[in-house]
């Protein structure tokens, strides 16, 4: 019995494709675990969230009701959604100023201003970065407690007034307190990034500029700033993305309160999903957060490449 004709691969397509080498197979095998994890824990949930955002369902209900774009329309008219967004923007802007700005100042001081104990200061400032956000939140809750917290005691000892409703209980200052805690925890990371950038600038550039009469502010403007531009872009984008994704710090310290004053997208999404059982609506908000994070991530990659 004659065998069926063996299919042949035409030359054109195989010529275009790179040959499957042992090296590329190894690379694929090495990446597979990470790709599988990303697929299972990021991509699939993201796709499910996008699909779920077009349905009305609770976490415990078996039935999903298709509602089209209702969940997105609801978000547009929900004042709490906009409050959460504006709080996120406040945290983002405040974090860039306090963390990137503060980190740059600290890095400059450590790079130029301090001759002795440089490593000790650097370690102390960096230390909060390695503590978990939950632990940081609990420590600050105690510090800010209006009855037994040391901050009130210090402020009173200085003869200054303390906030009547407490540092975390007053809607007008609670968000500022969150900003302070976030800055305390993260400024060390930004400082290290920027310090690394500063130290990568060759000293000869400053020496040459000095011979040409460029010192102080001029040297900073024409040498330091261009030299650390890439690092600053990276630090800013990391802070912006972190500001939009913030959850644990807010959840533990204020729970989004008092009376929603510190609600951010992350905590409001959680409340809608797990407290009110509005999973469809929560998914829609999660998609908004996802799109924001993806856009910012894309921007980060683009700017890094350009740099």
């Amino acid at each position, binding site marked *: 019995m004659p065998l069926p004709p063996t299919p042949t691969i035409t030359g054109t397509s195989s010529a275009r494709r790179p040959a499957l080498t042992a090296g590329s197979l190894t690379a694929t095998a090495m990446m597979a675990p990470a790709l599988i994890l990303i697929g299972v824990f990021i991509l699939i949930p993201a796709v499910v969230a996008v699909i779920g955002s077009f349905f009305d369902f609770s*976490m415990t209900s078996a039935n999903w009701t298709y509602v089209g774009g209702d969940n997105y329309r609801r978000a547009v008219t929900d004042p709490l959604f906009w409050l959460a967004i504006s709080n996120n923007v406040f945290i983002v802007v405040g974090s860039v100023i306090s963390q990137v700005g503060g980190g740059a100042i600290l890095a400059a001081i450590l790079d130029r201003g301090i001759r002795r104990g440089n490593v000790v200061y650097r370690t102390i400032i960096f230390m909060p970065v390695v503590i978990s956000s939950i632990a940081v939140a609990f420590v600050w809750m105690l510090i800010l407690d*209006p009855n037994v917290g040391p901050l009130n005691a210090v402020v009173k000892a200085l003869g200054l007034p303390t906030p009547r409703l407490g540092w975390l*209980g*007053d809607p007008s200052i609670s968000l500022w307190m969150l900003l302070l805690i976030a800055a305390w925890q993260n400024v060390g990371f930004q400082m290290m990034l920027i310090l690394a950038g500063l130290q990568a600038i060759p000293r000869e550039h400053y020496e040459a500029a000095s011979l040409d009469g460029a010192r102080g502010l001029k040297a900073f403007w024409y040498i330091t700033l261009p030299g650390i531009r890439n690092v600053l872009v990276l630090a800013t984008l990391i802070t912006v993305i972190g500001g939009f994704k913030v959850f644990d710090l807010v959840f533990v310290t204020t*729970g989004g*309160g*008092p*009376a929603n004053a510190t609600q951010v997208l992350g905590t409001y999404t959680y409340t809608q999903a797990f407290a009110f059982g509005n999973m469809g609506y929560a998914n829609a908000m999660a998609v908004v957060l996802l799109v924001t994070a993806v856009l910012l991530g894309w921007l980060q990659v683009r700017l890094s490449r350009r740099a």
Partner: protein
Amino acid sequence: MQLRLNGEMRLVAGAILGAALLAVPARAEDIVIKMWTLDNNGYKEFIAEAAESFKATHPNVTIEHQIFPGDPYKTALKVALVGSDGPDVFFNWSGDRAKQLIKDKLALDITDFGNAPGGFAKVLPEGWLDAFRYDGRLYGVAMDAVSKYVFYDKAYFAEHKLEIPKTLGELGALCKAVRGINPDTIPMPLGNKTRWKAIHWMTMLNERAMGVEGTAADYDLSRPADQLYTDPGYAKAFQALVDLQDAGCFEDAPNATEYAIADSMFATKASPMEYCGTWCTSGLDAAGFTDYGFFRLPVMEGGKGSADANFLVPEGYQVSAKTAHPKEAVEWLSFLVSDEQGLKFAEKVQFLPSNAKLIDKAEGVPQSFKDIARDVGTLKQGVNVLDALLESTVADAYMNATVEVLNRTLTPEAAVGKVREAALAAQAKQ
């Protein structure tokens, strides 16, 4: 011949096998009942001992007990019940949370198991069975109830000749008297950072203003929309809270104070009073503070509430609709509410058991616990707590409104307006 012999052999073999099967009782299938509860003092020990005792009648049943802190439990339970590895039996509060699980068919109808001989429905009084009864069917077993009282430092009261107040006005005057003794002493710290402490106050203040019957149709959203939460009693209740705050009863920043700090202020005698749950007694004992008394939240002058009504929240267990062993699960729960286990529960956990037949025989519990149990026994009406009773968005609106009333960013009338707005939205969705 060969065939005939084989047939005989088969008969003999069959007879031997049959005899063997009759002689050796069938080994029952090993069953694991996974149980989830909150992490309360003494709970772990109580369940461990009860599980051992249960083996006497159910040698093949093993109880696998897992404990959780309060807030994470609420979320973890929902996720687990939807998933494939959830608990067989689980703790739950009566009210909206239990109702939601029943509606979503995640909690099992256990009426028939409960009515079987030895079942919990034959043991518990009707009032307790009502805690988990929906549309005439039983969906849970009430294990205990928590109540709330104003606890006070007896020695402080005696030293300063202070008297137990009979009205909310007198309670305010008492707070002023405490501030008069020492302006820095907080008479009764609130600790409302997580919002549930003040909603407990509002639960009772609403009752004191309007009575249980006056609020029931608003709470279950059955009142017509144009009348929903329009009773002026709601604003009056908020105003009563404001009046107590003005009298200096609470700390300056109640919405920024952790409840644990408020508890420790009373336990360390820094404050002479605290409105606290019956669960607080074990904590006070552990802190070495035993010389305390208690009284119900006083009535409101001109209010429609009753001094015979008090905060009473039944809690208990439900059975997962996905359990593979519903019979054994309910038998285990029925065992937990038996006379003997009711007594042990009171001794170990110091919560008020649903089966309190042997409570007077309880050993190793403080006198205050027995006194509270006795007082609860005299209640004519239980008042369920708003954050468990109300639909979740209405409960959330109520908690936020209370926060704002305490912060003075909302007037009592505006606060009721916010609650009404949430209630109308929830009613429209029903």
